[in-house]
Every structure is written in structure tokens, then in C-alpha cells.
């Protein structure tokens, strides 16, 4: 990209940053509240482990299980793209897309810059509440990773972000073909909660089902990165996960580009 193009997206980034900073106040409280449902889940698992009579369920000890859910929050902070797919769907349906097509700016890259800005602000602001919660739960969390793994771990998180981005873009682009895409999105988000391992670690699933589920990109959006953060993987495995993430990102990004081009043609044809 030319330097002018880079500058352009950098401005988008800065403006989005400024917008986010306005909502500081309620943010602090809201971030803490996000941890509430985890408390319930963890208390449930405590009861399950007590009932099981052993400290191993699905290959995880109770401490691991607590850490799992906490770390899912961190991974979700990278991979979740709230409003992205519905935003794209809305722009397509209500014709705002025209505005972007007229300007010398690439819609999808613009969205990526926007998201990156939002994410960055979120991380800066969320560091406080997250740090407090993690410190309170420090006995459950694994030791901090070594320097060598750190690089790979960061790569995994970036992979999560990009993977989340392309998946949600693709969903939003469905709006070019389906009128009632909103309902479909809702269904999809529901299933994704389960398939990505947010509901519970995928290792708990019976073998047959687990094999199918882990073939899907969602497992690489949340489940595997969380295991990486959990520190229970040798560097070689982490590298493999990053690789699979990259493959999925490339494939899905290509599909997104293709869908975008096709969709635009259809959009123009129908009086965009």
C-alpha cells in the first residue's frame, strides 16, 4: 500500500480511537460485569468436580478449568467482532454502501482499521479490570509463558483476531444474497458459542463429535488459542495451530474477496 493509503487508514484508526474514549465511565463497570456469568460456570464446575471425586475432567484439573474460562475471555477479546456482520448487512440493505463505493477507500480494509482501533482502545481500557480479576484468581492461572513461546502466543492471538474478522465479514456479506440475514446471523452466533469451545472445552466432547467440530475454523478461533494460553502446549504444537489459523485466514479471506466482488455486481444490478 502506498504511504497515502496507509495514512488514510491511520486517520480512520485515530478517529475511531477518539470516539471510543468518550465512553470511559460505564466501560469500567461493564467490563467487570462481563465476568459474572463465569462465576456461575466456575461454581458449577466446582460442584461437578466434587461430584466426580477426581481432579481430572476432560484432561483438565479444576484449576485448569477455571483458567480455561478466564482465558477464553482474553481470547474472545481478540476474536469477537460485535456488530461487524450486522453492520455490514445493514450497510448493504439500507444502501449506505453506496457512500463507500464512491469514496477512494476500500470498504473491508476500512472496517479492519476501524476494528483494530476499537480493539486497541478496548485492550487499554480493559487492562485495569482484567488485571484485577486475574490477580484475584492467580492461584488458578498457569505460570507466565517463557520468552520463546511468547512470540508464538502473540501470533496466535493475532490469528484469532484476523480469523474472527474474516468469518464475521463473510457472514455480513451474505446480506447481498439473503434479505433476512439478521435472523440467520442470530442462529449462527448461537451455534458458534458451542462450536468454538466457549460453552465448555471441546476436549469434553465424545471422540466422534470432537473430530468433526475441530475440523471447523471456530475451534481455531477460540478453543485452540485458549489451550495455547493455558500453557499446556509445546512450542511445536503452538506453531502448528498458528499455521492452521493462517491457512483458514487465507482461504476465508479469498472467499470474502470473491463474495465482495460478486456481491457488488449484484448490488449494482439491483439499483444500489
Amino acid at each position, binding site marked *: 500500500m502506498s504511504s497515502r493509503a496507509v495514512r488514510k487508514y491511520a486517520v480512520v484508526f485515530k478517529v475511531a480511537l477518539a470516539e471510543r474514549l468518550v465512553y470511559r*465511565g*460505564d466501560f469500567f*463497570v*461493564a467490563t467487570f*460485569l462481563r465476568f*459474572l*456469568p463465569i*462465576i*456461575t460456570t466456575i*461454581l*458449577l464446575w*466446582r*460442584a*461437578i*468436580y*466434587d*461430584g*466426580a*471425586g477426581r481432579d481430572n*475432567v*476432560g484432561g483438565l484439573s479444576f484449576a485448569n478449568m477455571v483458567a480455561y474460562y478466564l482465558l477464553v475471555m482474553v481470547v474472545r477479546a481478540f476474536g469477537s467482532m460485535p456488530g461487524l456482520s450486522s453492520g455490514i448487512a445493514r450497510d448493504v440493505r439500507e444502501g449506505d454502501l453506496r457512500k463507500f463505493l464512491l469514496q477512494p477507500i476500500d470498504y473491508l480494509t476500512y472496517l479492519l482499521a476501524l476494528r483494530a482501533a476499537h480493539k486497541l482502545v478496548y485492550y487499554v481500557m480493559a487492562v485495569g479490570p482484567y488485571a484485577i480479576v486475574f490477580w484475584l484468581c492467580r492461584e488458578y492461572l498457569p505460570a507466565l509463558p517463557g520468552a520463546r513461546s511468547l512470540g508464538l502466543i502473540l501470533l496466535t492471538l493475532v490469528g484469532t483476531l484476523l480469523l474472527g474478522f474474516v468469518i464475521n465479514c463473510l457472514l455480513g456479506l451474505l446480506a447481498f444474497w439473503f434479505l*433476512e440475514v439478521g*435472523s*440467520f446471523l*442470530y*442462529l449462527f452466533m*448461537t*451455534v458458534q*458459542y*458451542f462450536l468454538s469451545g466457549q*460453552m*465448555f472445552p471441546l476436549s*469434553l*466432547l*465424545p471422540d466422534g463429535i470432537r473430530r468433526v467440530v475441530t475440523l471447523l475454523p471456530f475451534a481455531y478461533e477460540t478453543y485452540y488459542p485458549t489451550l495455547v494460553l493455558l500453557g499446556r502446549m509445546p512450542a511445536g504444537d503452538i506453531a502448528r495451530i498458528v499455521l492452521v489459523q493462517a491457512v483458514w485466514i487465507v482461504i476465508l479471506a479469498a472467499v470474502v474477496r470473491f463474495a465482495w466482488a460478486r456481491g457488488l455486481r449484484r448490488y449494482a444490478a439491483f439499483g444500489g
Partner: protein
Amino acid sequence: MLARYTRILLRFWKNCLLRDLSFRTHFLVHTGGEILWIAMALVFLKVIFANTRQVAGWNEHQYLFLMGAHLLVTSLFEMLFFSNCWRISERVRTGDLDFVLLRPANAQFLLSFERVDYTTAANLLVACGLCVYSVVALGSPITVGRVLLFLLLVAAAVAILYALVFMFAVTSIWFIRQTSMEHLWFYTVSIARYPAEIYRKFAAGVFWAVFVFVLPVLIVANLPASVMVRTFDPRMVAFMIAAAAVLLALSSVVFRVALRWYRSASS
């Protein structure tokens, strides 16, 4: 007067059914979504009980019944009251509340019952299915008395949830809330879902005490379920019914105070 309000209620329900049926896709998709959620929850249940015989003293079938009772109570609330409570602040903002105040009928009734969400009707069916299945699988004796008590407590549970959420929605006329109503409902549903015993040791028992006796959210599913498939404390049953009555009365008071403020301050 009861006959009249019943007739108004039936009108509301008929109007909403006509409306919901005219939006078929939305109806089907949301019903589908709800069923998916239930399916996922059942998978989770199977996963749990593949690893343990009991959770906080509830065995698999008792736990399944709890799930059914929870679904029953929350679906009833969502069907009858959720969208009405949710719309209150919007109605205040647009001035639509004024039209409700013009009618020669109780404003709280009109506001609370106007909309019915039939897309959660499927949940009700599934909930009943889960309850019936688990009770049969348990093989424990079912008496008419127990069933009636169960239904009474379900009604009390819905009343408690209604009163709490309604008061929250109404007082949002005063304050600007960061936690929206959807979030509040989501947290409430999450807390009420599992056996209440798991909260006993949390935060030195304060959490359990608060959410059983002050904001009785923990018992809305647990107590009706216990009555049906486990042992229960009759004092808790009495407490729940009393809590429902007290909270309903309180919601009426809060509503009137909020209305008075609204009518003094607006122009």
C-alpha cells in the same frame, strides 16, 4: 372487573398472535434459535453426567428437570413480559406513554401485558417435554398435590421475575442505565439456571443470602423443581409465595411514584 381485564388480555394476545404470524420467517428463525440453545444445553448436560453421578446433590434426571423448570419459568416471562418491560423507556421517550395514560384502565396492566412474544412458545413446549420426561425417568411418585404446588410456584416465580425486571425498567426513567435490560435479563437467567447449592460457599454465603432472600432470583427455578423431584422446605415455599406478593405490591408502588415524577416533570 376481572372479566373486563381478562377480555382486554385476550384481545392483546389475539392481536399479537395475528402480528407474529404475519412475520413468518422471523417467527421460524427465532423458534429455531431457541431449539438450538436447548440442544446445546442438553449436550452440555450429557457431558457433565459422563463425568459425575451428581451435581450438588442433583442426579441426572433431577438436573434435567431443573433445566426444564428453568426453561419453563424464563420462557413464560419472556413470552409475557420481556418486550413490554423493554419498551417502557422507549415509550416514555417517544411520548407513547401518554396514550396509555389516557385509557380508562390500569396503566401498569396495559403497559405490562400489551405484547406477547409467541416465538418463545416452542420453548414452553420443550420445557414441558423435558419436565415430563425427567419425572417419568426418575420414577418418583407424582401426586396431584405436588403438581399443583409446582404450578403455583412457577406462577410465583414468573411474578417475582416480572416484579424485579419491571421495577428496573420503570426506574430507568430516572437514571441513565449502563446495564441495559437485555443484559440484566441475561445475568438473571444465568444465575438462576443451576442448582442453588453451588452458591452456598461463594463470597462467604453473602451471594446466596442476597439472591435468595432479597432478590429471590436463585429460587425461581430451584424451588419449583425441588418441590417436584426432591425434598423441599415448606417454609421456603411459603417464603416464595409471600415474596411474589410483596414484590408485586412493591412494583405497583414504584410504578406510581415513577409516574408521578414523570407527570410533574414533563410538559
